């Protein structure tokens, strides 16, 4: 409840600020808003796909944050997930897709998940073993993964029939997954994660670990194993998000795979109170903002980075509203006693 109020306040405050900025830039805010919504409706499939990708990323991040593991590199894990899925779809699967296309699709998704999981396992292990800050390592790996993605679609995997267009060859159409399947995957993932953090021993270990590594060690929690599990879940879901983009929406490896969704998901996880199911509520809003931002660019020449700026501002507003909430709560409790 407390989380919900803080999240709503933060969103409203950020929107208000956004309106003010638009107004300063001589863009009528309400018209812009209407345009954005219209675009979201017109491209509802894109919006839904974006929302699902953000859900997957946000769920993974909220699991990590619950264990006090600051995985801020979901973007990188998404990239390697996409690479792995595309690799399976383009170069491992035979042209005949024998024995069944869906098998190869599933394999691509699994490969993406594993790639993301291992991309995040490294930071988790070095954090467990040598207490290397995962904020730094996961972020550095974002840059590495983005360059790797770029290298592949510009270099060896570039589509020979693409007229020099930057991107890999498209995946065979029978490898595509429908949005329904992605939605099912996302929902199941979120529910499993929610059960994991709330109802299992591992979830309890995570909450002790996030509080203090010392207490965890004292209580006999295997810190390395716990961090490894958390890292693999978090990275795996991000990798799956990447694979889903390749097999579901983009259909190939292009620069549009990595547009900062991994960072947006950090805000989503925070606003959702680090609850995997809360993510499902918050993510669609940001998906609409991100898709709608394209309308701002087309109609009013406002660059799309507007939505990125709004994300950051929303996070700052959220911190402030959590603080205000705490103060009010304290005053309220003070009156009671």
């Amino acid at each position, binding site marked *: 409840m407390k989380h919900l109020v803080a999240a709503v306040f933060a969103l409203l405050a950020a929107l208000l600020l956004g309106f003010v900025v638009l107004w300063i*830039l001589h863009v009528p805010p309400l018209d812009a808003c209407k345009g954005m919504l219209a675009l979201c409706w017109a491209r509802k499939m894109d919006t839904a796909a974006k929302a699902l990708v953000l859900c997957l990323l946000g769920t993974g991040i909220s699991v990590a944050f619950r264990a006090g593991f*600051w995985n*801020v590199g979901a973007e990188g894990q998404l990239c390697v997930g996409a690479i792995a899925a595309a690799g399976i779809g383009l170069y491992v699967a035979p042209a005949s897709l024998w024995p069944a296309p869906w098998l190869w699709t599933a394999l691509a998704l699994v490969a993406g998940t594993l790639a993301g999981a291992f991309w995040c396992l490294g930071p988790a292990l*070095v954090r467990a073993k*040598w*207490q*290397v*800050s995962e*904020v*730094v*390592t996961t*972020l*550095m*790996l974002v*840059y*590495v993964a983005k*360059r*790797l993605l*770029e*290298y592949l679609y*510009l*270099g060896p995997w570039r589509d020979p029939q693409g007229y020099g267009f930057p991107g890999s060859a498209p995946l065979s159409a029978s490898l595509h997954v429908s949005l329904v399947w992605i939605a099912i995957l996302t929902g199941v993932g979120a529910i499993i994660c929610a059960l994991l953090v709330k109802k299992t021993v591992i979830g309890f270990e995570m909450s002790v670990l996030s509080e203090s590594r010392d207490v965890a060690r004292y209580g006999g929690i295997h810190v390395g194993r716990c961090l490894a599990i958390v890292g693999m879940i978090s990275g795996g879901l991000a990798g799956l998000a990447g694979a889903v983009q390749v097999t579901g929406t983009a259909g190939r490896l292009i620069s549009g795979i990595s547009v900062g969704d991994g*960072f947006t998901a*950090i*805000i989503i996880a*925070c606003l959702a109170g680090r609850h995997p199911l809360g993510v499902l509520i918050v993510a669609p809003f940001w998906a609409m903002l991100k898709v709608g931002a394209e309308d701002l660019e087309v109609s009013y*020449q*406002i*660059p*799309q*980075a*507007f*939505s*990125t*700026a*709004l*994300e*950051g*501002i*929303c*996070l*700052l507003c*959220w*911190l*402030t509203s*959590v*603080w205000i909430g705490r103060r009010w709560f304290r005053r309220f409790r003070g009156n009671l006693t």
Partner: protein
Amino acid sequence: MMDWPAMNMATAIWMAAVAYASPMMLAALGEVISERAGVMNLGLEGMIAVGALVGYGVSADHGSAWLGLAAGGGVGLLLGAVHAALAVWIGADQIVAGLGMSLAATGAAAFLGPMWITWRSQPAFISELSASRYKALLGFPPTTYLALALGLIAVSVLSGRRLGIAIRASGDSPEAAEALGVRVRAVRSSCVLVGGMLAGLSGAILSLAYAQTWTSTMPNGMGWIIIALVPLSGWRPGRVMLFCLLLAAVNALQIRFQIIGVKLSASILDMMPYVATLIAVIAGRIWPWRKGRWNEPSALGRPLEQ
């Protein structure tokens, strides 16, 4: 592109390294100062980005690079104030606050930049900061000397003076420092402000003196690399400057490779600074510095308790 007369390859790389290192050093010094006082500033990347944009934009509007530098520093100061308000005064989680700042500021720079900057080739004001104009400076732009001078000031303030002791006390045990009469919140906020100002200034130098133009991807991870280098150097201003130079050398090397056309993709070469940072950070934790008088600020990331 091998037409650098009278200058061999190593010298060229080092010149480029020093040029890139000076903005890095400034931002890194700011981060050292604010982390010494106990506040992590993960918003560095964003502050540099905004500093770069504002520095270049103001210079372009008013035709003076020096004014641009001042504006970059000023806007960094403002962002620093926001971070100080969140991290010091309301005691918000410094990691989340920093990430928010980073996203907001990089986003703002990328969003306002294209609307503000109109591209021109080599505007006149750029030459104000170029090395060729100052013959006495051994071929380095004046901003390099600015970075060095600020570095020396930071070393002397942090190691000897009462202010430096107060800063370290605020980062090591804020409650004890408060009991000794240090106004910890004030010290921390001013350190974050200085850190923000230096980050903004560093951004302005990056666009005005180093790149001599503005692009929307401007700091391109430099802020994050600096955040990684600060613990690696044991929070010491001298060492952090050295590490900046080394990383800048890696960067210069990789750019040189791209120029002379090494048979490796530009994307792969571009990874080099990040991979180098990763390796260095992990190695730095496996073989840490010998513990001395300058250990990790033990209250880093922890707000002052009431």
